[in-house]
């Protein structure tokens, strides 16, 4: 596995523009002082039809645009072929916590599974997963473990490891879907305000991987979010993030409060989860400012875990805007 990841990284580094190195895995920053983490924001003002339903074709095109911009690829499959290899079991860690109206969009998940299959991943080697079977079903995903089809399952059905992995304040038993089923995982979170942590996006989505998220919410989830992301299996296997910001909430998260939901019609992609989240939080802050709401900091809930994740002890990525190469497509 590590060889394959290493190959991915090498292949990718060859194609990267000098000075904007982006890694196939977002763990420890292995780049020099001049390197930058790339984050791509793709938007489509015409994403929705008259009934405000998402047009799958446009969403698919938006994802392709984002991925191609990230990898500097000429065709839609290039990025996926660099990201995964046939024979690997690829997990898609979604966010289905609060039900059908506010979860990772099933159309986006479907588009990703199509691209993975086109890149040579067998349907059964794709695993859509989250915490619970009941949450996945409620959110509109069909559970499956049938041979020949894309799998979809909750960690509660498969179980958690008996022995915890530990880092800092995090001592967590990880989902066996992460530890045993998947070789690599693409993180597919949503963009949400979080009433105590400030932001729930790619780093916070890892709370859906552990057995004890409730114990990791003290002090605005800081340093717990950073520490959870330092757990060895999470660092090793989470290789990329496609953040679904087609719908997002600027207040009241992580729950479904429709009064605070809006539709940025945006995808954010990247391999540095700290850089991605540091970019994503500005989208929420801009919306709050537009509506005359206080900043997250003024409300006493800035996402402090971003700085922790970037510090010298964690080195999970960068939260320094000068070290983030932001592309909007």
């Amino acid at each position: 596995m590590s060889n394959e990841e290493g190959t991915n990284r090498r292949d990718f580094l060859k194609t990267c523009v000098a000075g904007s190195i982006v890694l196939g895995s977002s763990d420890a920053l292995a780049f020099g002082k001049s390197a930058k983490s790339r984050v791509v924001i793709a938007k489509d003002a015409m994403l929705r039809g008259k009934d405000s339903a998402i047009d799958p074709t446009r969403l698919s095109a938006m994802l392709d645009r984002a991925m191609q911009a990230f990898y500097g690829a000429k065709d839609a499959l290039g990025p996926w072929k660099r990201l995964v290899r046939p024979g690997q079991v690829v997990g898609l860690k979604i966010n289905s916590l609060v039900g059908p109206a506010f979860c990772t969009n099933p159309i986006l998940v479907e588009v990703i599974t199509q691209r993975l299959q086109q890149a040579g991943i067998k349907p059964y080697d794709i695993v859509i997963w989250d915490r619970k079977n009941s949450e996945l079903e409620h959110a509109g995903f069909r559970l499956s473990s049938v041979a020949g089809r894309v799998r979809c399952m909750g960690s509660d059905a498969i179980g958690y490891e008996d022995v915890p992995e530990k880092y800092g304040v995090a001592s967590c038993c990880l989902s066996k879907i992460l530890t045993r089923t998947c070789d690599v995982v693409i993180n597919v979170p949503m963009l949400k305000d979080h009433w105590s942590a400030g932001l729930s996006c790619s780093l916070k989505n890892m709370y859906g991987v552990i057995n004890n998220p409730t114990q990791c919410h003290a002090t605005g989830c800081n340093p717990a979010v950073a520490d959870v992301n330092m757990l060895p299996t999470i660092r090793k296997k989470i290789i990329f993030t496609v953040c679904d910001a087609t719908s997002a909430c600027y207040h009241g998260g992580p729950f479904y409060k429709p009064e605070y939901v809006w539709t940025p019609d945006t995808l954010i992609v990247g391999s540095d989860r700290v850089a991605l989240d540091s970019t994503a939080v500005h989208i929420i802050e801009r919306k709050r400012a537009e509506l005359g709401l206080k900043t997250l900091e003024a409300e006493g809930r800035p996402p402090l875990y971003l700085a922790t994740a970037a510090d010298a002890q964690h080195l999970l990525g960068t939260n320094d805007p000068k070290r983030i190469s932001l592309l909007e497509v």
Partner: protein
Amino acid sequence: MMVRTRLWAVAFIALILAVLIAAGCKHQGAVSALPQSNEVPGWEKTSETRTFTAANLSDYIDGGAEQYLKAGFKGVSTSEYKFQGKIEAVADVYVMSDPNAAKSIFEADPTGTAKSIPLGDAARLFSQSLVFRDGPNLVRIAAYQAGDDTPQNLTQLAQGIEKRLSK
């Protein structure tokens, strides 16, 4: 001396039982605050009522339980509804420790585009949701779909809940 000790023990156990029964009744109140199908015209109750206590609130609102627990939380009951087969919604009835606890949660959120409506002690109606507090109860109804009639339909469901709470 021994008889006296026993009497105290019996009295203590009786007191504990009374408190537990009272708490149970209170929680039962939250359960029964959710209207049955067509009790409010057009609204069908489409799921079993689920209840959560302080011990397992995080199973329902993981990541947000702390906010309610800090304010003073006793229990929540929730059920899904559907209006005339079109609008789906979820209704939550939170029972807080006292009216101030319900008020603190209610007022923690910005009013935004809400319309104030006469319901309970205070109520906010949005295009796709309705929140009101009534004594120690905090009620939240969120629709999954938007529609011109959604606010009016949500209001009717909320009135059904208020009616049950006042019994």
